[in-house]
């Protein structure tokens, strides 16, 4: 497991988890977006232009990049409002492709050739951001807003009957999720030194969605675990070089057949929670018993 010791991999794992958590926010409202990588791209490009061309400080550029991508997330949500399910996924895929075509033809950021010169991302910054994101998602999912997202995901009709503004909620889900994914994208740009439109294409969006579904999209811990496993898996099989993506694909097929709901589900978390509660209770009883017998 010495691969874990490489700082580059640690940064990539952290960034992937941040981006996947962003998609998790959007998915928690039932919006299975296949365009989130392009939102990460928007955050990456904007923050990169700010630091390289306008000489902004790193932190300010990353934050502004993420906020700007949040606005684009809201713009994504507008055509997505009328669609759901597979249609929504394909629509967001199309929006993502349009963003890619835009960056490919936009000469200011180098077009297809890409844009370079960013730096500043360190392991510390990535994991501080990740901690912030985990806390933010944890609070969000327990807040009334998070509950409202889950209601929209479970049944839109019910959500509306309960008086929830589903339009506002969906736009918020896209915007907040896009913001967090873009935060990861901005960090990615300043870690890689160089970005091009293909760093944020359809494949990346698909991988983000796979991260979320593979680990289990019912809780954020599933997303963290799924991203961790699927980022490390190809690295772990690096010795097999050209076969590692084949293994990746096979693992995906196998998992979807065996556990389509993802590795970590709420039921599993409850079971584990009950297990801990049980052990605690027994320990307490044992301790009481021992202290009684002593006296």
């Amino acid at each position, binding site marked *: 497991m010495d691969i874990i010791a490489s700082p580059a991999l640690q940064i990539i794992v952290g960034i992937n988890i941040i981006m996947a958590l962003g998609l998790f926010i959007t998915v928690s409202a039932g919006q*299975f977006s296949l365009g989130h990588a392009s939102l990460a791209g928007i955050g990456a490009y904007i923050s990169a232009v700010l630091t390289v061309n306008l000489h902004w400080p790193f932190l300010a550029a990353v934050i502004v990049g993420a906020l700007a991508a949040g606005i684009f997330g809201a713009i994504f949500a507008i*055509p997505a409002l*009328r*669609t*759901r*399910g*597979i*249609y929504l*996924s*394909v*629509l967001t*895929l*199309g*929006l993502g*492709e*349009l963003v890619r*075509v835009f960056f*490919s*033809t936009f000469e200011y950021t180098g077009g*297809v050739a890409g844009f370079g010169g960013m730096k500043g991302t360190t392991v510390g910054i990535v994991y501080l951001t990740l901690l912030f994101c985990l806390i933010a998602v944890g609070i969000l999912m327990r807040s009334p807003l998070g509950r409202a997202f889950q209601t929209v995901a479970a049944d839109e009709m019910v959500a509306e009957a309960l008086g929830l503004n589903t339009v506002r909620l969906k736009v918020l889900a896209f915007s907040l999720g896009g913001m967090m994914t873009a935060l990861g994208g901005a960090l990615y740009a300043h870690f890689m030194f160089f970005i091009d439109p293909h760093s944020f294409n*359809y*494949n990346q969006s*698909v991988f983000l*969605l*796979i991260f979320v*579904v*593979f680990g289990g999209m019912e809780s954020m811990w599933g997303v963290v675990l799924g991203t961790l496993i699927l980022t490390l898996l190809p690295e772990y099989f690096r010795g097999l070089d*050209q*076969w590692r*993506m*084949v293994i*990746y*694909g*096979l*693992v*995906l*097929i196998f998992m*979807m*057949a065996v556990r*389509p*709901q993802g590795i970590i589900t709420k039921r599993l978390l409850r079971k584990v929670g009950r297990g801990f509660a049980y052990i605690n209770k027994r320990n307490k009883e044992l301790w009481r018993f021992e202290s009684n017998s002593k006296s």
Partner: protein
Amino acid sequence: MLQQLINGLMLGSTYALIALGYSLVFGVLGLINLAHGEIFMLGGFIGLMVVTVAQLSLPFAILGAMIGAGLIGIILELLCFRPVKRSYFLAPALSTIGFGIVVRDLMVNYVGSEPKVFPSTVQLPDFQIGSLLISSVQLLILGASLFLMVGLTLFVNRTSLGRAMRAVAENPVVAQLQGVNVARITMITFFVSALLAGAAGVFIGLRIGKLSPFIGTSVGLKALAVVIIGGLGNINGAMLAGLLVGMLEILASAYLGAAYSDAIPWTLLIIILVFRPSGLLGSKTNVDRA
């Protein structure tokens, strides 16, 4: 201009062939097969191998590509759809993505990531009609695409297998009760869908003159846009939208620049989904199923 329209017609008919595959599978299962583009790519390579390795003529290449792709389609169904629970609509989609990754990377390992050139022995003479230059390859593609599309329409509408397919599409439970073997029909649907993709793979290879293992994703995704523009599950819609997108794309790359032609299917898709979510010829029920 007319020349561009004819080129658009070629591209469009190939898109339509791939789009029909998506549409068939969606119509019967209500699910999207995201490995369809890779099956199409594989079909192209099988065709190429029939021509280069087995030294056979073009009709055999098309036939071989179709059958080879069809068999892969059956494997796909057995691996990615049959064992996966339907209640998680994303699970089969992601499973097919996994299958696509496996097919693509096996292909990269086998032929390398460089594009492979279709041999010139396959290139047939060109015709000059007035100022128009039409190669016989183009005529072949157009003819074969039309033949396959008409054949598919007849198959779905006139044969008993086609009727069984439509019954499963309408309601699998009732179809089962009426004595239709749903599992077998599902498998045949995948076979037919991959059959068309395999033929399209050879056509694209002939048209561009070369094939790369990465072509499946880009063309496959555009065909996915095409099928939604036409209306998921609707065969006529897929053909109409395929021709429309093909024409517009060729016109865009001729008059706006090649970079913008990639944006055409997606712009059209977004406009259609916003103003007519069921697609050009689709019905409302399919939108609710998705």
